[in-house]
C-alpha cells in the first residue's frame, strides 16, 4: 500500500513539465485569445513529436507492441501535468484510441503511438440519436477535432473509430480557443469497433487527472499572487478571508488527487468497484477544477477579470471539459447506483 508517486513517476512527470513549459509558454496560450470566433489548436507537428518522444502515447501499450507496458497510475502522473500546464491537442483521444487499437489488428496502433496519427475523443451529443456499430450514425460532441485524423467515439460500452474527414461539423464552442469542442454529424463506417467499458472508465480517470492538474495550477496561481499583492499595508494572503479561500483550494486539490490515484490503482490492480471509484474521482476532481478556477479569479480581484492575467485560462479550460466523459449527473448516477463500497 503506497499512494505516493515513485521516483520514476516523478521524474517522468518532471520531464513532461519541462517540455510543456518550453513548447507551450503562457504567452502562446494568451495569444490564442483574440477577438472574434477563433480556434487555435496550437498542436503543431513539432509539438506533437515532442510528446511522442516522451512516450506519452505508448505508455500503457504492451512492450511487445512497442509500448512501455505501464499502468493507469503512471498515466495519471502525466495527465495531471497536462492539466497543470494547459496542454493542447487531442492527447486523451489518441491515448485511448491506441489502447483500443492494441486489441485489434492492423497498423493503426503504430501510427497512433508513433505520432503519425491523432485521434480526438467524442461522445453522444445529449438529446440526439447515436448509433455505434459497424457504422457510426448520429450527432457527436468532439474534443480537439481540429488536428485529428481519427475520431474515437465512446458511447455506453461501445468504442468505435471513424476517420475525421467523414464528419460534418455543425457548430463549434471556442470558449477555450486552444481546446475547442465541435458538434458534428457523422455517418461513417467504423475502422475499429469494440465493446469495452474499460476504455471509457480509463478515460474518466485520465480526465479526472487533468482536472486535478487544473485545480492545482489555480491553487498555485492564487498562492503566488496573494503573497505579493498588497492592500491595507500587507499582502492580502495574510487576511483570513483570502487565506481561508486559498486553504480550501488546497483541500479540494488534495482530495481530488488522492481519489484519482486511488481510482487508477483500483483499475491497475483489478479490484472491485472500478466504475464507482472512477466516477467518484471524476466528480471530486471536476468540482475541484471548477471551484478553484472560480476562487482564483476572485483572489485576483480586478486583474482576475482580465484576459491578461492567468486565471481566465484555467476557468476557460475547465469549461471546455465540462461534459467530457459524461455529465456530472451521469457520474453521480454511477456513484448512487453502486453497491456498498466498504
Amino acid at each position, binding site marked *: 500500500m*503506497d499512494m*505516493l508517486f515513485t521516483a520514476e513517476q516523478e521524474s517522468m512527470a518532471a520531464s513532461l513539465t519541462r517540455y510543456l513549459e518550453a513548447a507551450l509558454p503562457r504567452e502562446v496560450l494568451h495569444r490564442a485569445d483574440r477577438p472574434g470566433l477563433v480556434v487555435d489548436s496550437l498542436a503543431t507537428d513539432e509539438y506533437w513529436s515532442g510528446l511522442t518522444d516522451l512516450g506519452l502515447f505508448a505508455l500503457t501499450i504492451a512492450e511487445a507492441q512497442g509500448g512501455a507496458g505501464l499502468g493507469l497510475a503512471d498515466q495519471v502522473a502525466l495527465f495531471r501535468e497536462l492539466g497543470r500546464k494547459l496542454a493542447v491537442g487531442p492527447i486523451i483521444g489518441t491515448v485511448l484510441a491506441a489502447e483500443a487499437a492494441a486489441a485489434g489488428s492492423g497498423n493503426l496502433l503504430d501510427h497512433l503511438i508513433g505520432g503519425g496519427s491523432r485521434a480526438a475523443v467524442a461522445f453522444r451529443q445529449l438529446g440526439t440519436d447515436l448509433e455505434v456499430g459497424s457504422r457510426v450514425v448520429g450527432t457527436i460532441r468532439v474534443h480537439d477535432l481540429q488536428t485529428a485524423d481519427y475520431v474515437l467515439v465512446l458511447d455506453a460500452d461501445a468504442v468505435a473509430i471513424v476517420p475525421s474527414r467523414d464528419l460534418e461539423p455543425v457548430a463549434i464552442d471556442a470558449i477555450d480557443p486552444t481546446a475547442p469542442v465541435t458538434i458534428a454529424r457523422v455517418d461513417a463506417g467504423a475502422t475499429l469497433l469494440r465493446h469495452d467499458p474499460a476504455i471509457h472508465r480509463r478515460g474518466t480517470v485520465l480526465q479526472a487527472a487533468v482536472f486535478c492538474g487544473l485545480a492545482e495550477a489555480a491553487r498555485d496561481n492564487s498562492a503566488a499572487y496573494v*503573497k505579493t499583492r498588497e492592500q491595507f499595508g500587507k499582502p492580502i494572503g*495574510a487576511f483570513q478571508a483570502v487565506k481561508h479561500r486559498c486553504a480550501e483550494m*488546497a483541500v479540494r486539490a488534495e482530495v*481530488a488527487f488522492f481519489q484519482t490515484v*486511488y481510482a487508477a490503482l*483500483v483499475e491497475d490492480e483489478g479490484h472491485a468497484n472500478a466504475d464507482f471509484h472512477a466516477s467518484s474521482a471524476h466528480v471530486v476532481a471536476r468540482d475541484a477544477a471548477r471551484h478553484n478556477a472560480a476562487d482564483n479569479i476572485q483572489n485576483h480581484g480586478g486583474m482576475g477579470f482580465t484576459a491578461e492575467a492567468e486565471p481566465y485560462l484555467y476557468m476557460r479550460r475547465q469549461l471546455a471539459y465540462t461534459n467530457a466523459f459524461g455529465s456530472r449527473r451521469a457520474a*453521480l448516477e454511477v456513484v448512487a447506483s453502486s453497491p456498498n463500497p*466498504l
Partner: protein
Amino acid sequence: MDLKFSPEDLAFQDEARTWLEENRPTEPRPTELRWAREFDVAWQKTQFEAGWAGISWPADWGGRNLSMLQQLLWYEAYAKANAPGLGVNFVGMSHAGPTLMAHGSREQQTGHLPRILSGDEIWCQGFSEPGSGSDLASLSTRAVLDGDELVVNGQKIWTSYANVADCQELLVRTDPNAPKHKGITWVICDMTYPGIDVRPIRNIAGQEEFCEVFYTDVRIPLTNVVGGLNNGWSVAMSTLSFERGTAFMADIVELANTVERLIDEAREAPSPLGKGRAYDDDAVRVQLAELRAEVTALRALNYATVSRIARNGRPGVEGSIVRFYFSQLLQRAYAIGVEVLGASSIGTERFSPWAQGQLNSFRASIAAGTKDIQRNIIGERLLGLPKDR
C-alpha cells in the same frame, strides 16, 4: 505505488475481523458517564488482554509494534463490526500516550504507558482556557516553582471527561516574562491532587462530557514535567500533530459507515414529496451521491496519510486538510440525515438519532483546532502565505 496488502496484512485483517465479530460488545454504550467509563474501560481491557489495544504501539509498552497500515486495517475492521469507539480512552491513547513516547522520561513512560494501554488510567486534556482558545499560547494558568514542586492556580475549560479521568495533560505558564510560546510547560497532573475542582458543562447534544477545571494551589512534583520546563509549546504541538494526523483515522472509517447507513435507510424511507422512496427522489439521490463520492475521497486521504507516515515517519501538515475536510463532511452527512430521515426516525429517545448526530457533529470543526485554525495552518504552512499575527 500500489494498493496491495502483504500476506501478513491480509492475515492480520482476517484475524482482526474474526476477533471483533466474536468479542465486540453488543449492548449500547450507557449514556450516564460513570457507566460509560466502566463500559469503555472494560472494552479497552478486553482488547488489551487479547493483544489488540496498541497495534502500532512499541512492544516496550505492551503494544504490537505493527505498521500504521495495520492500524488502519484494524480501524476498518472495527467500524465494519460496529465496535464502540475509544470513548474515555481517547486522550490517553491518541494524545498523552504518543506524547509521552516522544518526550517523556523513562520513569514517566514506564509509569503511565502500560496503564493507558490496559485501560487502567484515563486521561483528559487541560489545554484551552476561557481566555485562550484558538490563541492557545496566550494561556495564563500560572505555575510557580516552589522547591521541587510547581504550584498551579488558574482555570481550564472544554476538558472532556475531566470528571472521570485519573490524569491530565496540563499546559501551564511557568515563565510569564518570556515570549508567549517560550514560557509554557507541559506537565502531568494527577486528578486526585488537592485543590482541583471539576464542574461539568452540558453540551448542545445533551451530554455532560466536557468540564471546567479550577486549580487552587495545586502542588505538582517537578518530576511530572514532560519535555523540560518552558518547553511545553513544542511538546503540545507534537501532541496536536498526532491528533490531526492519525487520531481521527478511525472516525473517517466510521463516517464512511454512517453514509452507507444513511443510503440504506434512504432506500426505505418515504420520499420528501410523499410518494415512493427517498433514494429515488432525484434531489436526495444527488446529495447522497455527492456525499458518497467525497467520503470515498476522504478514505483515499486516509491511505495517503498511512503512506506519508510509512515514507517520512510522520503525517505532515496535510493532517489539517484531512481534519478540515472530515469535519465538513461529517456535518453535511448528519444534516442530510436529518432532512431525509429526520421525520421518519423519531422514536422513544429524547433526541432522534440523526438530530442528535447533527448536534454532536458541530464539535468536529471546533475541537482539535477550529476549522479556522486548520485553514490558517493549511494556508501558512502548506501554501506559505504570510501570518496576520
